[in-house]
C-alpha cells in the first residue's frame, strides 16, 4: 500500500468511534472523507498528527507504519493542515511559510538560498506575493487559510492532508481554497486526503469519495458512484435528488427532507 490506514480502531473512553477501518489513498489522487458529524473522519486524520492515538491499527506509508519513520523524514513526505490553527498573531505570512522548511533544517544551520527559493515559490503559487510581509492577524479568513496552505507547500510533501480546510469560510473562499488544493494536486502531483462537509464541493473537487458510517468505510468510489440517493439516505439520513452538472461534469444533489425522525 502506498498510503492509507490499516485496521484502525479508535475509542474515546467507552465510546467506539472507528472499528477496524482500512482504506487506501491512491498516489496522485484527491480523496475526500465524508460522513455525519462525529462519524470519526477527523479522528482518522488526527491519528497522523498524533492528536488521536488509535486503540489499534496504524497509518501506512510505502508499506511501513508511519511510526517507523523519523519525525522529520516523515514531515518531508506528509504535510498536515489542522482544522484549527493557532499562531502568534504578529508573525507575518513569509515567516509562517518559512516554518514549512523546518523538517529540512540541519542542526545549527539557518535558511539556505534554496530554502528561500522554495518559500518564494510557495508564496507565489498561493497568490500571496502582495501580502508576504503582513501579519497573519490582519488577513481575511481566506487569505489566512492560503498562508497556512503555503506553509504546507513549502514543506514539499508528496501527500497533503487537510482537516476541513473550508470551515468558517464563506462560499467564495471555499471555492478558492479547493481550486488551490486541486492545482497542488494537478500541477505538483501532491496526493490529497481531506475531510469536507459540503458534499457538492466534495463531489466537484475529488477523484474519490469515501463515506464513513458506523465506524468504517461504508462505500467508496468516484463521485458519480458515491453521490446517489441511496447512499445519501443511508449515510446522512436525507431524501435527496441527484442531478448532473453538465459544465463541470460532476454530480450534485438537492436535499428534499430529512428522513430522521425527531424524538417527541
Amino acid at each position, binding site marked *: 500500500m502506498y498510503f492509507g490506514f490499516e485496521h484502525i480502531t479508535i475509542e474515546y473512553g467507552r465510546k467506539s468511534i472507528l472499528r477496524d477501518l482500512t482504506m487506501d489513498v491512491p498516489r496522485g489522487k484527491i480523496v475526500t472523507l465524508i460522513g455525519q458529524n462525529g462519524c470519526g473522519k477527523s479522528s482518522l486524520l*488526527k491519528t*497522523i*498528527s*498524533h*492528536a488521536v492515538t488509535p486503540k489499534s491499527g496504524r497509518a501506512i506509508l510505502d508499506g511501513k507504519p508511519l511510526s517507523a519513520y*523519523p*519525525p*522529520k*523524514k*516523515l*514531515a*518531508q513526505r*506528509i*504535510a*498536515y*493542515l*489542522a482544522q*484549527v*490553527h*493557532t*499562531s*502568534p*498573531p*504578529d*508573525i*507575518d505570512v513569509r*515567516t509562517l511559510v518559512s*516554518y*514549512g522548511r*523546518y*523538517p529540512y*533544517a540541519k542542526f*545549527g544551520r539557518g535558511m539556505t538560498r534554496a530554502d528561500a527559493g522554495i518559500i518564494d515559490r510557495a508564496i507565489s503559487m498561493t497568490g500571496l506575493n502582495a501580502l508576504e*510581509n503582513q501579519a497573519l492577524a490582519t488577513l481575511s479568513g481566506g487569505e489566512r487559510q492560503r498562508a497556512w496552505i503555503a506553509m504546507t507547500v513549502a*514543506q514539499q510533501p508528496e501527500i497533503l*492532508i487537510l482537516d476541513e480546510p473550508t470551515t468558517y469560510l464563506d462560499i467564495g473562499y471555499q471555492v478558492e481554497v479547493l481550486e488551490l488544493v486541486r492545482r497542488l494536486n494537478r500541477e505538483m502531483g501532491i496526493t490529497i486526503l481531506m475531510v469536507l462537509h459540503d458534499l457538492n464541493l466534495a463531489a466537484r473537487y475529488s477523484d474519490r469519495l469515501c463515506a464513513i458510517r458506523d465506524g468504517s468505510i461504508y462505500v467508496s468510489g468516484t463521485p458519480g458512484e458515491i453521490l446517489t440517493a441511496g447512499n445519501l439516505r443511508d449515510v446522512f439520513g436525507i431524501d435527496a435528488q441527484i442531478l448532473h452538472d453538465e459544465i463541470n461534469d460532476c454530480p450534485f444533489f438537492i436535499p428534499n427532507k430529512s428522513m430522521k425522525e425527531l424524538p417527541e
Partner: protein
Amino acid sequence: MSVSLRRTIVLAALGMISVLSLFVCTGIGTVKFTVPEVAKALFVDDGSMARLLIWNLRFPRVLTGGLVGICLSLAGCILQGVMRNTLASPSTIGVTGGASFVGYLTLVAFPHLAYLLPVGSIIGAFVTTMLIYALAYQKGVSPVKMILSGMAVSALFGAFNDIIKTLFADSLGNASGFLVGGLNGTSWDSFFMVLPYALVGMFTCLFLPSKMNILMLGDETANSLGLRTEVFRFFLIAVSSLLAGAAISAAGLISFVGLVVPHIARLLVGSDYKYLFPASVLMGFSLITVCDTIGRVIMPPGEVPVSIILSFIGAPFFLWLLRTRDKGGT
C-alpha cells in the same frame, strides 16, 4: 525589512541600557563616589574603602541581580511557550514556592553543604512545573486552571516553608538572599554559586528559538512538521526549572520578572523567539539591577527589597494584562 531593522535597533538599545545599568547601578549607592573612583575601584585593588564597597559589595550584587533577572525572564519566556499561555511565569504558576520548599529541605538536611541549594531549588522547580502542567494541561493550558493550580500550590508550599523556617531556624545558616528574598547581602560567593547553572541554561536557550517557534503553531501542526512535541515540552520544562531554580536559590521569591519581561519584550520585538530571547535577557538584566538600586537608595539608611519594588511595578501590570486579555486579545 523595516520590521527586522526595528528589531535590531530595539535590541541594540536594550543592550546599551543593560551596559549602562550595569555601571550606573554599581556607581550609585548611599555612599557617594565619583566616576573615576568607581572606575578605579573596579580595576585596581588598592584596599581602599571604595574598593571594598564597590568591588566586594555592589558589583557582585548588581551582577547577581542581573543574572537572576536573566534567568527568571528566560524561564518565563519558555514557560509561556510550554503552556502556550502568556500568563505563565515562575511566580504565577507556583514554581517559586515549590523551588524554595525543596531549597529549604536541602538546607535543613545538609546544613554544611550550602552549594547544594541551587540543586535543591532546581529539583523543586521541576517537580512543581510538571505538577502544574499535569493539572492544567489539555491541548494548551487553560489560563484559569493554571492560575488557580498555581495559587493553590503556592499557598501550600508557602505554609510548608513557614513551618520549616519556624522549626529549623538554627540550621538555615546564611543563605541570606534565598531566605529573606532579595539581593541584600549577596556576595561573589552567591554569584559563583548560581553562575554555572545560569550559564548552562542560557547556553541551551541558544538552540531553542526555531523549535519554540514551531511549538507555538499548536501541537498538531508542530507534530506534523516533525517536532516531537511531548519530548520537547519535557525538555523545556527541565530548562526553565534549571533557570528558575538557580535564580530562586540566589534571591528567593522575586515575583513578576518572569511575567512582565517576556510581555514587554513581545510588545517590542514580536513573538519570534529568535528576538524574544535576547530581548528578554537584556530587559531582565536591566530591570532587576535598576529596581534593586532603587530599593537600595530610596529610603536611607534602610533598604527596600527588590521584590517589593518589582511588585509595585509588576502587580498593576499583571492586572492590566488580565483586563486586556478579557477583551479578546490573545
